């Protein structure tokens, strides 16, 4: 039995649980989603269709999912972690065989009412599994090689599947989030130093392999890297995204052009203006102030999550909370870096803002886990 089970008496029950929700996080998530509604309204040219309406419905559904997950005791989630991981792994395998091919990548399963991206689900279940693993593992074994290899496999097997789809963005997120949880759990520094060193080696290998038979990435992925390194090479072709995105962003200036006054995104200079590149619309219309505000809200989410993680004595709760916060962070950090030309275009949405069902539902569910940890924290 864990520490938590021993202190179950102090945990709220029934509807009192609602009082113990982490309300600041709920409000922050709602405000991020609202920014999304605003921007989707703007890129649609001042219309609720085609994006705001479904996005709002999904947000409401997401809130329901979050509450539902939050109401269920965190130890239940810990106990089903392995199952959840296996289910999402199975789904990931399924898209290999039944998935629709969209945007050049096999990424989702059509459930009829929505398209499920198992890779999104995997981001959360991987964090859950790792948290449960380290909760179960005696701390003194944490840094032993065998017990390090196990979680590394847990991370790398789904990552390999996702990379095969191919979805470079999600694979980066999976590895970074998984590595993050391992780091939090107390795995020895030396391992991370080794991974970073071999990572550099891998990057070198990736570039070396280009054009050879054992080429590690697809050609379009190489092109993305090329144009990231020098967007001016091909301003109307592969560099188009980055160049146009920087123009839109830069033209926003200090305070922006004003709501609905953005020209670049609404005139279709920007591709994916309602999904991956929605931040440029915000930055163009609300300028530096607008962009910084959204970044601040995001960082507040992270800060509150870390505070909640530190506040709990339960290892699983803390690891899951931190892991999800890290995943969330990785989403917006990678997306913003991408649109600001700091990273190649890898196809990571801006969490809660970009139009898209899977990410929002999965993230809301994940924050349900944070809430559940918060509610079921022994006091």
């Amino acid at each position, binding site marked *: 039995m864990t*520490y938590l089970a021993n202190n179950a008496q102090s945990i709220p029950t029934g509807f009192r649980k609602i009082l113990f929700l982490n309300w600041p996080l709920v409000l922050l998530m709602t405000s991020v989603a609202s920014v999304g509604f605003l921007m989707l309204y703007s890129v649609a040219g001042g219309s609720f269709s085609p994006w705001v309406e479904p996005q709002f419905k999904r947000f409401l559904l997401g809130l329901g999912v979050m509450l539902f997950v939050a109401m269920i005791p965190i130890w239940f989630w810990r106990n089903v972690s392995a199952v959840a991981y296996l289910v999402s792994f199975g789904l990931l395998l399924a898209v290999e065989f039944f998935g629709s091919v969209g945007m050049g990548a096999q990424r989702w399963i059509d459930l009829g009412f929505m398209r499920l991206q198992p890779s999104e689900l995997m981001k959360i279940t991987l964090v859950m599994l790792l948290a449960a693993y380290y909760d179960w593992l005696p701390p003194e074994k944490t840094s032993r090689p065998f017990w390090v290899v196990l979680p590394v496999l847990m991370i790398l097997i789904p990552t390999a599947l996702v990379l095969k789809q191919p979805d470079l963005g999600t694979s980066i997120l999976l590895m970074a989030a998984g590595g993050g949880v391992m780091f939090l759990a107390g795995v020895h520094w030396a391992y991370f130093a080794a991974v970073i060193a071999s990572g550099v080696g891998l990057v070198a290998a990736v570039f070396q392999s280009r054009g050879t038979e054992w080429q590690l990435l697809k050609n379009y992925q190489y092109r993305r890297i090329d144009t990231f390194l020098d967007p001016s090479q091909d301003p109307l072709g592969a560099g188009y995204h980055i160049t146009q995105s920087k*123009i839109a962003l*830069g033209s*926003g200036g200090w305070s922006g052009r004003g709501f609905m006054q953005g*020209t670049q995104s609404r*005139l279709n200079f920007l591709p994916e203006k309602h999904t991956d590149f929605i931040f440029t619309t915000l930055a163009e219309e609300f300028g530096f102030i607008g962009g910084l505000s959204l970044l601040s809200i995001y960082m507040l989410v992270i800060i509150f999550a*870390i505070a909640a993680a530190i506040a709990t004595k339960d290892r699983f709760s803390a690891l899951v909370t931190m892991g999800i916060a890290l995943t969330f962070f990785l989403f917006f950090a990678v997306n913003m870096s991408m649109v600001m*030309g700091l990273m190649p275009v890898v196809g990571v949405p801006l969490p809660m803002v970009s139009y898209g069902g899977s990410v929002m539902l999965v993230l809301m569910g994940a924050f349900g886990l944070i809430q559940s940890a918060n509610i079921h924290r022994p006091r």
Partner: protein
Amino acid sequence: MKRTPRDQEHSHRVLSRRALLLGGLQLGFAGGLAARMRFLQVDQADEFRLLAEENRVNFELLPPARGRIFDRNGTVIAKNSPSYRIVIVPENTPDIDAAITKLRQLVEISDEEIKEALEDIEAGRRYHRITLADQVTWEDIARVAANAPALSGISPEVGLTRVYPQNADFAHVVGYVGPVSDYDLSKMDDPDPILLTPRFQFGKVGFESKLEERLRGKAGTKRVEVNAGGRVMRELGRREGEAGRDMQLTLDANLQSYAQTRLGNESASAVVIDCETGDLRAICSSPSFDPNLFVRGISGKNYRDLTSNIYRPLANKSVQGVYPPGSTFKMVVALAALEEGIVGTEDTVWCPGHLEVSGRRFHCWKRAGHGHVNLNGSLKGSCDVYYYDLAIKVGIEKISAMARRLGLGVRHDLPMSAVASGLAPDKDWKFKVHGQDWLVGDTVNSSIGQGYMLASPMQLAVMTARLATGRAVEPRLLKSIDGIDQPSGAGESMGLNENNLRFVRKGMYSVSNERRGTAYRNRIVADGLRMAGKTGTSQVRNITAAERAAGVIRNEDLPWERRDHALFVSFAPYDNPKYAISVVVEHGGGGSTAAAPIARDILLQALYDGPPPLTAYPKRDRPRIKALQERLKREQEQAHKPSVKDQA
């Protein structure tokens, strides 16, 4: 498995420490993002804003309405009419080939047009309007509109096109417009951007070309917001252009039409000038052509017909054709001699039919000779020997100087294409161009307007007007621009002795009013409208000794291109000169038979400002003239039937 509290304490401390560390890293990264954002949005904002403007704003040119051209009475010579065309926007057409096939079932479109359009589609952006068929009829437009659902992406459009309602009458003077070609652009240093518009109409020849910039006006611009595909989203603002200037010519459309018809199918030209003001009343060259054909883009066959015609219909013979002036030059020699005091009006010369000059025999046109000839008789009978003798006395320098004073051998700056300067040769000129000394024989040849002497019909008309008035009359074609009158060409007195001028005019009067005058048969009998003129017959070949020995060959027996040019210059009324005219009929034979009748008819038409009464003609001519007038009237009407389907 039960853990000790110490264990838990320890692992929790590690977790918290690492959580804070990771949180710190995240904050640091976020700080980096904020700094990057600041760099892009604040430090580099201006640069990106500029790029954004370029991204979204396009300038569209608003083609200006081309200036219209009127005759002196306000009759339209060139105007703009709505023209209908059919355009395609490839982006909106799912299946271009199918749409075009369907369209061709409704509207007749040539393979060439389709080929051109397909090339445009291939090359151009898919959001541009590309012309499929130009100058279609309203019926075609209606058919396209009715079938709109089956022709997605294809739509009718209205534009302006140039129309010349007078058809062939002004073709040489006004010229025509046509689509700007790459060749046209290559000749310009800095072409107006509007010229780059596909199928923009631009003055190609004649007045249209010479005054192109003022006729064209200035293009306006429209700032439009476009999306990444170049499709117009909305208009941001516009700067209106400047319409082209309306031009009024000094020409008289009625007279022009009459004269053009009167010249008929001869290869001929006529120029009528107002002696008082220098206004050109008619500038004709025949055969003519329909400038409307060129506006639409002339077919290869029609064009070949025009270029291969030996009568050169495309040439504006009245200003670009130069001819030896022949006997019409005799006034110049006479006046030069009178001004120099070399000859008295009653001094006579014996004409035996030829003159020996440095061992060479120069013939008079009249083989039998004129006998004793004085100045008046020399003009009236057009005695060559008299002028051989006179010219040798005066010298070529004086003669050519007088020719230039009278407007020959100098270029009159008129807004028409290829205005020729003709030639009044002198010793310097011959040495410079031919590297030879001037011979006395050259002077003899020049004295009767042969040899090197060359003049255009325009110059001959100016010469006649100057002789008639004593003023340096300058020809004027452009009467007003946008209602603002241009300077008159009346000119100042040339400072010639009025008595001398009067003698010359009297000689010209005798030509066409006295028995044995070379143009006596072509006199005007109406009181107060008497015409004074001079015939000219200029050789286009040398008569060889063998030919001469074989006897004079009659002109009519020669092939057309070797016959003499027929010339006639005159002015009327004799007492109070109003109009001067020159007529040149290429290879027409004698000036008195081929050119003078035409000149008289046109001059009378001008003097009466319409058909003259038959009483103006000598009695015996009247039945013939009556028939002629009726025939010309029919032909004039025929010539003005609209050649282009004019939808205005």
